[in-house]
């Protein structure tokens, strides 16, 4: 383009201002030409990329796709163009890497040939079908007209129409099932109307004659058909005794035709039904909601693809950590956590164990498992669980906290515990919880000074600090709780969802009941209650803490959080869900 333009100016220049202007112009066009070259290259890249499929998209070319891979592919194309490769060579390069698949227009060879040929075959077949159908229509009409060349019948039609027969036929048609008779009535009526129109001057005589001939021919054909299919009808018998002979020997094929038509209808119905069922089954089994942007709606049943990739059915057994599984893990984790917070230990253990079966190194599951085990008094198993968690993530707070406490309280290994707590303090944001850890660190130093054993013992039974109060029933709860009911009084570090610090269990309580929540109720043996806590109570009706029925009565202290040491922390129970 620019070269042409250049040339035209060049001619002009020579004629007008000579070489100076030419030089000036060249200067002007030089950068433009360069720009044109880069534009040209970009256009070339685009054109090649447009023929290549983006491997990570669905039905997008590498030119249109905004994906990172498509960008990189365009980069590769540009690089190879600069190296002087032809578009064909570049396309061949991509085919050698990704296979024929990468071409948006596959080469017409082998199976891909079908893609090229099939549409034309389909169009051709369609045209042939239409031609066939049209030819049959024409044929049918011809046959109809051929059949009417019986002058006797035409005469009869004319006679009957002139005699006003149509009215009579019309009346009869009311209770006559035969479509042929109805057709006859209609044709007669049409003929009568045509005659009326002609007489009223609405039609030219040629038109009238042509239309009349047409209708008469049709009516004659109907009469003939009538004569053959319903020989027993008195009307027909009277008017056309001649056709009766023909009728008797046409009867059998006529009946066969009818049964065939029924059979065809039934077959069509069955086919449609089967098609519908198959479609329904396949679609419902193979479609699923998209779980992510990259997910497919098809999969599972037919292709064996899980969300975002090939799933368990086609993979190697025993090494999957598929997306579906990781989703399970997330929900199991939530289950375990909430069971842990409700102190439903068996449920928590079950959930965390399931996670660990799938992923033995799951940090959070291992940490929680450690807490559960520690709570049950299995110190060594708990330590092993914390170690597994810390091996995967050496800075996981729950594991650091649990292991530190266990080492300090149960193993009396202050040095290691201190190391862990110090690391934990380094990780924690400033707040109540960090202060609690720092406080324990402080305890450790004083404990180390004053001799390990005594300090540990005093820590196991720390004096004083308790929470006291009364649990009573709300006004709506006048019924006595069953004898199997168990009351839990729980102190948590934060809100209603934090991990419990201390729990008091009272079986078969009689309300109102006084309680003392002391260090002996601490969840981690030997750990004193300290700082501010949230106090709540729950009456489990069946006494089984793993079930959390709707019949449970719950209550919270009105002025949470309370400082440990407070008295008069009174709680009123209410039915779960009531304000």
């Amino acid at each position: 383009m620019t070269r042409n333009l250049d040339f035209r100016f060049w001619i002009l220049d020579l004629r007008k201002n000579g070489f100076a202007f030419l030089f000036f112009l060249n200067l002007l066009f030089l950068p433009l030409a360069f720009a044109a070259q880069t534009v040209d290259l970009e256009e070339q890249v685009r054109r090649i990329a447009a023929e290549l499929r983006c491997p990570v998209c669905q039905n997008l070319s590498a030119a249109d796709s905004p994906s990172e891979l498509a960008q990189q592919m365009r980069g590769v194309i540009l690089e190879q163009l600069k190296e002087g490769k032809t578009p064909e060579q570049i396309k061949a390069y991509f085919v050698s890497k990704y296979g024929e698949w990468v071409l948006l227009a596959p080469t017409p060879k082998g199976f891909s040939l079908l893609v090229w040929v099939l549409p034309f075959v389909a169009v051709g077949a369609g045209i042939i079908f239409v031609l066939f159908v049209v030819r049959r229509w024409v044929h049918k009409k011809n046959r109809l007209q051929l059949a009417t060349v019986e002058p006797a019948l035409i005469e009869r039609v004319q006679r009957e129409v002139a005699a006003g027969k149509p009215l009579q036929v019309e009346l009869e048609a009311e209770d006559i099932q035969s479509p042929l008779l109805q057709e006859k009535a209609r044709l007669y009526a049409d003929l009568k109307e045509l005659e009326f129109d002609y007489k009223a001057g609405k039609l030219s005589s040629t038109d009238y004659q042509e239309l009349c001939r047409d209708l008469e021919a049709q009516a004659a054909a109907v009469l003939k058909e009538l004569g053959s299919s319903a020989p027993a009808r008195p009307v027909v018998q009277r008017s056309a005794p001649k056709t009766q002979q023909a009728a008797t020997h046409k009867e059998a094929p006529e009946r066969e035709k009818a049964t065939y038509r029924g059979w065809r209808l039934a077959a069509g119905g069955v086919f449609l039904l089967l098609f519908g069922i198959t479609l329904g089954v396949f679609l419902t089994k193979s479609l699923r909601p998209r779980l992510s942007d990259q997910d497919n709606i098809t999969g599972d049943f037919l292709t064996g693809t899980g969300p975002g990739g090939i799933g368990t059915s086609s993979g190697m057994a025993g090494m999957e950590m598929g997306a579906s599984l990781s989703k399970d893990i997330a929900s199991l984790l939530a289950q375990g956590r909430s069971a842990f917070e409700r102190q439903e230990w068996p449920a928590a253990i079950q959930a965390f164990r399931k996670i660990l079966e799938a992923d033995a190194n799951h940090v959070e599951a291992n940490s929680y498992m450690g807490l559960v085990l520690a709570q049950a008094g299995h110190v060594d198993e708990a330590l092993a669980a914390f170690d597994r968690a810390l091996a995967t993530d050496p800075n996981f707070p729950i594991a650091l906290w649990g292991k530190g406490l266990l080492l300090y309280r149960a193993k009396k290994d202050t040095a290691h515990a201190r190391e862990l707590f110090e690391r934990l303090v380094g990780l924690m944001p400033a707040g109540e919880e960090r202060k609690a850890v720092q406080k324990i660190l402080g305890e450790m130093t004083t404990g180390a000074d004053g001799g390990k054993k005594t300090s540990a013992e005093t820590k196991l039974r720390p004096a004083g600090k308790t929470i006291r109060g009364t649990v009573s029933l709300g006004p709506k709860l006048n019924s006595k709780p069953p004898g199997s009911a168990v009351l839990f009084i729980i102190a948590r570090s934060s809100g209603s969802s934090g991990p419990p610090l201390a729990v008091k269990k009272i079986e078969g309580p009689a309300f109102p009941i006084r309680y003392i929540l002391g260090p002996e109720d601490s969840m981690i043996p030997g750990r004193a209650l300290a700082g501010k806590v949230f106090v709540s109570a729950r009456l489990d009706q069946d006494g089984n803490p793993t079930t959390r029925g709707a019949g449970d009565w719950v209550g919270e202290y009105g002025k949470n959080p309370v400082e440990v040491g407070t008295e008069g922390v009174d709680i009123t129970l209410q039915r779960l869900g009531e304000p």
Partner: protein
Amino acid sequence: MRFERDPKLDTSLNMPWRRVMITLAVILPLIGLLAYGFSRDPRYINTPLIGRQAPPFTLTLFDGKKISLDDVTGKTVFLNFWASWCPPCRAEARDLEAVWQKVKDSDVVLLGVDIQDTEEDALAFLREFNITYPNGRDLSGKVAVDYGVWGIPETFFIDPQGRITYKHVGSLGSALITAKIDEARRGIVSAKEGKGTYQPIR
């Protein structure tokens, strides 16, 4: 039944059968085509690379050194494409390192190629799983395109002669890795690539 029936009627009665056959002949292949389309994963790209010479590359490792495929000719190469944001890559990371600990003193090289990732995330990933085998980033994506990578983790096993013997899309377990490394060492070319849980790249 076929007494005194004229031949014209006969053909008209045979017509339906012929018509049914023609209809089926048209519809059945179409249904077959539909079923075929439904039964395959439209994303899956079968690699043409197995049995071919591995494309050469030079990779700058995270520690600044450079490594190219030529440097390791004569060794069995385990080439793994990964990214820190890919869950199946995380799933196999520990197994890969475990295998490396077992084979690092033999003539086997494990090589990780991090694609479509930031250096920070990649380094965090390597630290998280204590990965010690050589790893580098493919910044331009050229190595990935050269190997026709489309879903990660994607792993190529290359025999001492530099030929790709096996490709696996999706996370690998240590048993399969060991088996395929052994095959690669002996130059056995697998007929088909392996499939597992993968993550399409971006």
